[in-house]
C-alpha cells in the first residue's frame, strides 16, 4: 500500500471516530484528530462525503493489503476465503462501529453498485469464485449483473444482521458468516450451480415470463435512478 493511500485511510479513520462523537465536525477538528493540517486533508478530500465514502474503500484496501501478506492464503478453501473477506471487513468496521452503523445505509447501500467499495467487493467475490479450481465447470459469463447484485444484497443483509447483533463479541455474526460461506461452498461445489445455470440459460430465452421480467427490470432501474437522485 502506498504512502498516499495509507494517509487517506488514516484520515478516513480519524473522521469516522470523530463522526461518532459529533457528526458536524469541521476540517480543523479532523486535522487535530488525524495529526495533519487541514490543507493536507483538503488536498486528499475536497468534501466530507468523499472522506466517508473512502472510509469504506479504505477498509477494503486494508483487507487486500492484509491478505497479500498472508502466506497460506493459497491453501484456503472457498468457504475460508469468503469468510476471510467478510470477517476481515467486519473486524475493521468493528473498530468504527458507531460510524458504520450510522452511515453504511446512506453511504454504501443506497448507492447501489456505483461506489468504489461496492465495485471492489463484487470484483473480489467474483475473483474468489473464479479462482476456485472446483468451480471450473461454471462458465465465467454465468456471473453477470444479476450475480453482482446478489452479492451486494447479501452483503447488505449481513451488515443489517451485524448492526442488530448484540451477542458478546459479535459471535452471532461470526457464526452466520461461517455457516453462510460453508453453505455457499457446498452449493458452488455441487452440481446445483451447473444445473441451475443450464436451466436458467434455457428459461432466459424460452420463459413465458420473459416480458414480465423485462418490465420488472425496467422498474428496478427506474427505482434505483430515483434513489441516486
Amino acid at each position, binding site marked *: 500500500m502506498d504512502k498516499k493511500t495509507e494517509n487517506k485511510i488514516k484520515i478516513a479513520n480519524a473522521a469516522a471516530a470523530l463522526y461518532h462523537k459529533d457528526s458536524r465536525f469541521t476540517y480543523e477538528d479532523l486535522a487535530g484528530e488525524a495529526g495533519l493540517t487541514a490543507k493536507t486533508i483538503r488536498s486528499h478530500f475536497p468534501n466530507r462525503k468523499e472522506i466517508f465514502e473512502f472510509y469504506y474503500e479504505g477498509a477494503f484496501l486494508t483487507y487486500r493489503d*492484509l491478505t497479500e*501478506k*498472508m502466506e*497460506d492464503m493459497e491453501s*484456503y*478453501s472457498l*468457504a*475460508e*476465503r469468503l*469468510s*476471510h473477506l467478510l*470477517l*476481515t471487513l*467486519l*473486524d475493521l468496521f*468493528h473498530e468504527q462501529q458507531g460510524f458504520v452503523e450510522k452511515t453504511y445505509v446512506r453511504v454504501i447501500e443506497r448507492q447501489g453498485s456505483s461506489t468504489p467499495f461496492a465495485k471492489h467487493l463484487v470484483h473480489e467475490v467474483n475473483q474468489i469464485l473464479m479462482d476456485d479450481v472446483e468451480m471450473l465447470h461454471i462458465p465465467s459469463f454465468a456471473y453477470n449483473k444479476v450475480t453482482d447484485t446478489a452479492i451486494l444484497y447479501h452483503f447488505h443483509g449481513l451488515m443489517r444482521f451485524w448492526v442488530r447483533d448484540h*451477542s*458478546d*463479541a*459479535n*459471535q*452471532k455474526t*461470526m*457464526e452466520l*458468516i*461461517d455457516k453462510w460461506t*460453508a453453505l455457499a461452498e457446498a452449493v458452488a461445489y455441487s452440481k446445483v450451480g451447473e444445473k441451475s445455470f443450464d436451466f436458467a440459460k434455457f428459461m432466459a430465452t424460452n420463459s413465458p415470463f420473459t416480458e414480465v421480467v423485462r418490465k420488472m427490470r425496467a422498474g428496478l432501474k427506474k427505482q434505483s435512478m430515483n434513489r441516486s437522485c
Partner: protein
Amino acid sequence: MNDFPSTPYKRGKIFAKTGLKVGTNYARHYLDSLRGKPADRASLHRNTAEDMMKEFTRLRGTALKIAQAMSIDQGMLPEEFSRVMSRSQHQVPPIQRALVRSVIRQELGDYPEKIFATFDTKAFAAASIGQVHKATLKDGRKVAVKIQYPGMRETISTDLGLAKALFKRFVAKGSDINPYFDEIRETLLMETDYRHEGETLDRFHARYESDQFTTPVWIPEYSTERVLTMSFLEGDHADPFLERNPTQEERNHYGQLLWDFFHLQVESHAEIHADTHPGNFVLTDDGRLGIIDFGCVKTFPADFFRDYLMLLPTHLKRDEEEILKLYYRLGVLNGDPAKNKREKEYYEFSMNYGFTFAMPYMNNTFDFADPEFAALLKGFTRNVPISNEPRGNRHFLYSTRVHVGLYHLLMKLGATVNIGESRERIERVLLQYEEEAIKAMS
C-alpha cells in the same frame, strides 16, 4: 481401620467369573423376554442408534460431550448405541482458518501473526468445543492456544434440548433422564468459560507440578473467556508411545503415574480431572506424566463421593448389608431386590460388576494386561441386564468416566501397578469422612 479384605486374588477371580455368567444369563433372559414382540428389539436399538447418530453429529461439540459421558457409562445405554456414539469423536468439524483469525482478533485485540511470533493456523488437536493450535510467543515460549467456536454457550443449550428429545425416544417409558442432562449441561457450560479453566490450570499446577507430574502453565495475558493460552507440553500420547514398543518397565512406570495421579486427586478430594482419555495425557521425555485439558474438572459432593469410594471395600468383602444400603443411597436400586424381580436383576448384576471393578484393589499389585480381567469387564458392559433405563446418582456419569477411563488406559498400556499406597489413600479419605460424620453428630 482396614476396609479392604486380603482374600487371595484367585478367589476373586473365580467369584468374578461366576458374576460374568450371571450377567450373561440375565442378558439372555432379557432378550428372551423380548421375544415374540412385533419388532426385533435388538435390531431396533441398532437402527435407532444409527439414526440418532446421524442427527447427533450435527450437534458438534455437545454431541461429542454427551457421547463421551454416555459411552463410558455403558450401564445406562445398550452397547450398540454406545459403540455408534463413540464414533462421533472423530466427526467434529474443524473451525475454519478465517474464523480462527477473527476470533483471535476479537479476543486478543489483533490477528495471530501480530500477536504471536509463530502461529500454526491448522489445529493440532480437537477439543470438544474448540480446537488447539501451536504457537510461539514473542519471548520464545512455546504455547498451545485453545480457541472456542463462536456462540458455543447458546449452541449447547439448543443442542441439549434437541439431544434430550432424541434420547426420550430411546429410553424406557417413564424414566427420568433430566438429572443426567442437567449434569451434562452444567459441566458443558462451565467448560465454555476458558478463564475458569485457566484458574483450574493454576490450581493443578500448584498442587501437582513435581518430578512425577507436569501440567501446563496458564498464560492469562493471552487468554480470555474464549481463548486459552498455556505452555506447550512436549511428549507422546499413549498411542505413539506404544508404537515405539516400550519395555514393560516403561509401561509400568507411566501406568503407575496415571494410577497415582488419580488417587492423589481422590485423597485431596477437592477436584478431579474428569476427562480420562488418552488424548489428555502426555508421557514426557523426562519420564513425567503430563496432564492437559482441564475443561472438565469435577468436585463431587461429599455424600456421593464417600458412598462411591465405599463401593470398593464393601464389594471386596461382599458385605451385602452395607452394599444394599449404598445401592439405595446411590439410586442403583429403586426397590427391594428380595421382593422385586427386576430390582434383583439390577442388584446381582451391580454386585458382580462392582466386585470385578474393585478387583484391582485386592492385592498389592495388579496386572492390567491380564486378558481375563479385560474380558470380564467387557463381558459386564456387554451384558447389562436392562439397558434402556437410566439408573444411579447423576454424579456416576463423571465418576465412572474417570475410573473406567483410567482402567482402559492402564489396560491399553498393559501396565502392572502397585496398589498398596493407593489403598491407604482411599482408607484415609474414608476415615476422614467417618470422623467428620461423628463430629457432625456430636
